[in-house]
């Protein structure tokens, strides 16, 4: 059952902000289909009423006092930005 089609891979690639050549598209379609087919074995298990685990420890809502503390300084923060101007990160045009 080929549930992963090239169309679907294109759609997911768009969501993930990735682009692929035709060859890569073929490769990922096949590999993702293999992996998803493999993952289908989870359906052998009846999980009705089983609570999902997102975190293994019993820690919930870790809170702290809302204290003012120094942040990284602006110069440091911008040090790794590929492009910046006037103390702000510069990005390509957002609007067409």
């Amino acid at each position, binding site marked *: 059952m080929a549930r992963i089609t090239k169309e679907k891979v294109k759609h*997911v690639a768009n969501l*993930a902000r990735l682009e692929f050549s035709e060859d890569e598209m073929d490769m990922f379609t096949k590999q993702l289909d293999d992996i*998803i087919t493999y993952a289908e074995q989870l359906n052998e298990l009846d999980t009705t009423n089983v609570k999902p685990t997102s975190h293994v420890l019993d820690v919930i809502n870790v809170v702290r006092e809302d204290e003012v503390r120094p942040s990284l300084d602006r110069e440091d923060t911008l040090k790794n930005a590929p492009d910046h101007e006037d103390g702000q990160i510069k*990005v390509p*045009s*957002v609007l067409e």
Partner: protein
Amino acid sequence: MSIFDHQIKDIHELLHKKELSVTDLVEESYSRIKEVEGKVDSFLQLTEENARQQAKDLDQVLTTEGVKGNLFGLPTGIKDNIVTKGIRTTCASKLLENFEPVHNATVVEKLAAANTVTIGKLNMDEFAMGSSNENSGFKVTRNPWDTNRVPGGSSGGSAASVASGEVLFSLGSDTGGSIREPAAFCGVVGLKPTYGRVSRFGLVAFASSLDQIGPITRTVEDNAFVLQTIAGYDKMDSTSANVEVPDYRVALTGDIKDLKIAVPKEYLGEGVAPEVREKIEQALKTLESLGATWEEVSLPHSKYANAAYYILSSSEASANLARFDGIRYGKRMEDTNLIETYRKTRSQGFGDEVKRRIMLGTFALSSGYYDAYYKKAQQVRTLIKQDFDEVFKKYDVIIGPTAPTTAFKIGEKMNDPLTMYATDILTIPMNLAGVPAISVPAGLADGLPVGLQIIGNYFEESTVYRVAHAFEQATDFHKQKPTL
């Protein structure tokens, strides 16, 4: 014989008696690196200038104040997904080729406070995704026991550098076996602590509900020394556990009389190579001779762990890696507009395995598939955790092999992701459950190391160390070294 064949406590004794200096230790590291690095390729970057200066400073401290701190003067390597202030941290990804962190990870701060010396940053699979180090964006680290074979992954550089005597210890990270599998393949000791035992602040996130930092060393005692230094609650990591850190050295008694061991039949079944099984059976005999008893048990959901893991870890990765878009840090491939810039940056910056996982995770989380894959995998995770809870009601530790085979050949599994994923089958369940596990050397099969895995209940690192130490003291496997 190298000075690194000594344990930390013996090195400290020599420092104390002024028979050795920190500079000697650091020079030993760099001269060994000069000698073998061409064959092993453990490091992405060396920090020679800093290290030599630091050695001088620490030698000054040695003269005036003596050996100060748990890990005083010890040369160490840090996996390149742990951020180091002012020292390039790439996660072995082209996208982060020039990234220079502006702060230290908590573990790096703790090592600095314990007066260690950082020798360099270690190679890994890109963003810690892989089991062989072949997914590094820069180079492939080789197994010191046979340089045609992989060192394991993703902390391959961390394990290979310790095994080949380039550093005394290293830090790695383990999301599905990334400390334990390379430790097994390279014949060294690697611990994945309980989830939450060590702060992850400053560890570049792969799968946040699974990632954990841990030490790689030549001996169990040294491993306990390092964990002692890096463990504990950190207010900067809300997933770190506010649980007291015991004195791990107290556990190293050599006494395992009346210890109850569980051996899951699933861990010695199909897919486990006969030569690996044989070493584990021998190890059980050794443990029996020390007064422990063992029984076969079942962890019935083991076979589903891999499928659940790849869905969950990839889903978390697809969200965590969304931040690499070429805007705030990393390389930017500029295009006509913002969206195209994201696309180009990510497509050119990430390697194939990282893209595969992002695609898998994005798919599993996408509208219409979330319940069928992501939620289902989370439910299976619950069943896997319950398997462990059940066994730990009756037994002190669980024992099995760390990996189903010894180190495989470079290139052998690169064309088929599912075959590569199967190498993690014995290490993944512990990450899903969150329990601690160690890999210790259990002897050589055809000249390649086999790892014995000892798994404990939550926050029972002491028990894990006690058993590992008793086994180590009863055998000579940890003294075997590769010839390079």
